Every structure is written in C-alpha cells, then in structure tokens.
C-alpha cells in the first residue's frame, strides 16, 4: 500500500477544502469529496450457505440479494453489484484490514476479494435539490417511488459510469466515480447544482450536518 503522505485523492487538485464553508446556509445542494473510503469488491455464491455466513460474520452486514439494494450503516455498507458480486465499503484507511479479514475468513470457500479502493472516489451530495441535480444527467428514475434510501445502482451520470447510493431522505447520495472521471463529474455536478445554490463542505462538517438532521 502507498505511504499515506504520498496518497492523493482524485479531487485533491481542486483544493475543495479551501472553498469549503462551515455553514452551508440556504444552499439547495451541499457536496464534498469523501476521500480514501475503503472499497473492496467481493464475489461469491449467495446460494453457498458457508460463504454467506462467513461473509456476514466478517463484515457485520448482510450481503443483499435483492438487486440494487444496500445493507449497512455509517461507514460499513455492502452494495449489490450483481447476483454474485458486492462492493464492501469501509472507513478510510481500513481496506488492508478488511481484505485481510475477509481472505482469512473465506479461506477454503470459493470467493474473490479484491481491493478496489484507489479506483474510485466518492462525491457526497445532499440537500433538497440533490435529486434534481443528479436527474439532469441520469437515465434512472430517481423519484422516491422508484429509488430511495438504501438503494444503489450502477448507471451513467453525465458521461461517467458511476455507482449511486442513496443514504437518507434528505436526500443524500454517495456517487462512486472512477478516478479519471472524478474531475469531470465534480465540475458537472457543480455546474448542474449552481442554480439551486451550491456549497462545498469538508468531510467532518458533512457528517455533522447529517447527524443534526437525524436528531431533528
């Protein structure tokens, strides 16, 4: 693994932290980069009871078998990617441990564990107009009757392939975008959201806003 001091997230060059505000005020869309979120691709047979049991034990979340759904909370999620494929999410910096734990637990079981952390970054956007912003460039029906909290999808946003995950009803979305498309997609989102009022927040503030909403 790269030394942490050498590590650059795909949006570092935009210096988003320098433009971040402490209080987003009436912004219709609030966004920020979630840097270095751990991402592990897990493959295995959901009909294999041993695989399911061991994975659940190691991850403390279920591997969802309903297409395009998510199990988990806070910084540990399992996103459905395919009938035998999931994206496991962990707190920043935990991918090494996550991979080691999974490989150890799954020893002797037919499965594949791949660290894909560096391949993508996560853009989190939240606010009353977050959905409209995404809908400007996404073929999915994002209306709450069709897509809501706990749903995920691999689809296209603008011209980038993304994994969408809706976390709450604010609504808040995590957009997993491939590294080389991150700059393009950030600018696309900022452009699309500007008419609703757009604010950039740093990660800790994003978490604080989310917690404040939850207690309301």
């Amino acid at each position, binding site marked *: 693994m790269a030394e942490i001091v050498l590590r650059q997230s795909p949006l570092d060059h935009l210096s988003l932290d320098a433009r971040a505000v402490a209080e987003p005020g009436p912004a219709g869309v609030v966004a920020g980069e979630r840097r270095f979120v751990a991402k592990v691709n897990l493959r295995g047979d959901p009909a294999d009871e041993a695989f399911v049991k061991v994975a659940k034990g190691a991850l403390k979340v279920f591997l969802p078998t309903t*297409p*395009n759904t998510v199990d988990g909370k806070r910084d540990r999620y399992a996103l459905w*990617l*395919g*009938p035998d*494929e999931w994206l496991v999410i962990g707190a920043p910096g935990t991918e090494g441990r996550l991979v080691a734990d999974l490989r150890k637990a799954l020893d002797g079981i037919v499965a594949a564990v791949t660290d894909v952390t560096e391949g993508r970054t996560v853009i989190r956007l939240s606010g009353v107009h977050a959905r409209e912003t995404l809908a400007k460039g996404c*073929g*999915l029906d994002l209306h709450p009757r069709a897509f809501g909290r706990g749903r995920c*999808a*691999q*689809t*296209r946003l603008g011209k980038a*392939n993304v994994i969408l995950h809706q976390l709450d009803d604010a609504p808040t979305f995590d957009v997993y975008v491939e590294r080389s498309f991150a700059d393009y997609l950030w600018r696309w989102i900022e452009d699309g959201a500007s008419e609703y009022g757009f604010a950039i927040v740093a990660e800790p503030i994003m978490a604080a806003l989310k917690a404040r909403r939850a207690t309301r």
Partner: protein
Amino acid sequence: MHLIACPWCGPRDEAEFSYGGEAHILRPEQPDALDDAAFANYLFMRGNPKGVHAERWVHTVGCRRWFNALRSTVTHEITAIYPMGTPRPDRAP
C-alpha cells in the same frame, strides 16, 4: 428512450447495454472435423431476419450480466428476455 429490461436491474436506458450478436450459436463439438466452408459458416454466417431475432445483450454500465432477448428488427419491440443457455421461448424445444 428505448428501455431494455435487464433481468436483474429492471428497465434501463438502451445506452447502458451492449449488443452481443445473434444468440444460440453453438461452437461445433469437434471443430477439427469441419472443413473450411463449414467452419466459416459457424464463424461468420448469421441470420438476418426481418422480424423476431434472438440476440445477446449485456448490461455493460450496470450489473454487467449477459442475457438473451427476442427483438423485432422492424419495430425494436422486445418480446422476451431469457437466460443464456436456455432455449428460445418462441420455439418448441
């Protein structure tokens, strides 16, 4: 927007899919026994119906799974989506 119903993800924009050519083309069990004409027939020759066509699709941008579809080459209407390796649903087995 032409919607294609991925068997896993449900209806998605056509642009999320890639076309995989005609379905149900089986590799000859003993390719060594074929002469050039027969092998060329397997390799290159495809049906070109005006009407229902059995074809392969993959949900490239989504779950990346393959499936078969019956699609009208005239109207683009998709009348069946079925797993690869199963027979054409509009023909008696």
